[in-house]
Each structure stands twice: as C-alpha cells, then as structure tokens.
C-alpha cells in the first residue's frame, strides 16, 4: 500500500473518521493472515503505509514500529481481542447464578 501525504493530527484530537476506518480495515486484513498462535499478541499498525509489527511484548512491537513510522500514524491493537486495555467496567461480564444454602 503506497504511502500518501497525510495531515498530522495532534495526539489530543480524535483521529479523522477516515483514518480510523482505514486502521480498522487494516486490522481485519492483517489479522486474517496471522497464525492462531498470534492471538493476544500486540499489533502496531501504520494506517498510512499498511506496515505493522506483531510481538508478545507491547514495548518491542512499538519500538520496531517507530523505526519505520511516525507516531501519529501508529495504532496498537491486541490480535483477536482488539482492545489493549479496558478503562472501567468488567472484562468478562459476570453471569449471575442462583445459589442455595
């Protein structure tokens, strides 16, 4: 995928919708090609070039991605899980069950 000139968005501004959409499309395309053992690993992708890094260690994936990409074009996912962290709320919704004494 050829790199094209892109506006740099401030880290404090939300990504333009088209960049988000491109990133999500890239995520799906990349993950479809990865082997099952990569589930849960960290994926850092460049939505302007399509380049990506996968590693079980998030810092390692990020460091490698920074060698070829601008921070403003990078998004980190977890393979299969998508979200890297959860901010507030339950990770696995707990099922309620009846108990008796």
């Amino acid at each position, binding site marked *: 995928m050829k790199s094209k000139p892109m506006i740099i968005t401030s*880290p*404090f501004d*939300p*990504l333009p919708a088209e960049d*988000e959409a491109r*990133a999500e499309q890239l995520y799906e395309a990349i993950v479809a090609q990865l082997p099952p053992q990569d589930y849960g690993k960290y994926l*850092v992708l460049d939505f302007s070039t399509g380049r990506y890094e996968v590693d079980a260690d*998030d810092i390692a994936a*990020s460091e490698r*991605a*920074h060698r070829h990409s601008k*921070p*403003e074009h*990078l*998004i*980190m*996912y*977890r393979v299969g899980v*998508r*979200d*890297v*962290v*959860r*901010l*507030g*709320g*339950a*990770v696995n919704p707990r099922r309620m069950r009846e108990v008796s004494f």
Partner: protein
Amino acid sequence: MISGEVSAFDEAIVPLRLRSTDGRLFEVEALVDTGFTGWLTLGRDGIDALGLQFRERQRVRLGDDRSKKMSLFTGIVVWDEQEFAVPVLASEQGAIIGMRLLRGHRLFVDVVDGGEVLIERRAQDGPLLSR
C-alpha cells in the same frame, strides 16, 4: 508505600509523583481504579506540564463497552524512591492508576469518608505481610 484517603465522593485517591522531561518533580491526586487494566492515565494539562513524548494511539475499551483510540505517552513515575518509565494514556478524566501499576503491591482501602488508602509492596517471597 503510598498513602491517601477515600474522598467524600467515594473515590480512593492517592498522591502520585511524576518526573517531567526537564527534571522537575510534580505531584497529582490520582484515582485508584481496579476496573482499569492499564498503567496510568493523565489529563492533557498534566501531560503538557510534564513534557511527555507521544508514542502511538491504542484501542481502549471503555466502561460503556464502546471502543476508543486513546493517545499513549511515556511518563516517569517516582515511587518509593525509585523512578521508572510507564505508559500513560491521555484521558479527559485526569489521573487514574490502574492494575498494571499496582502489580506487585497490596492495595488496602478503608472504605469510610477519609479512610486510609494504602499501596505497599508485597513481600518478594513467602506469605503476604500481615497487618
């Protein structure tokens, strides 16, 4: 050990120290949130004051189950006389301490107005320290 208290709004708040990129020491009142699986969030003003470097965005799941791309910076936490780098997410909600930063520690909250909030390192080997 870090010590704080339960606020009148039922929040477990502790003071957290951070080192700016130009070497100054700052302190922020941070919420301890066991529903946050990451390290630390800070507000934009805090990130600007510390001069933190932007690394990348991350996909984050929020409490209402929406996902959002949040910006990640590298910050330096000053904790028990040690200084170490941590990932810091930019959040409009300000300073929030998550489970990754608490790893290796015990969290104690006396859940009354003004009750103690204590974060202390676990014993390396053997049983937990008893109180």
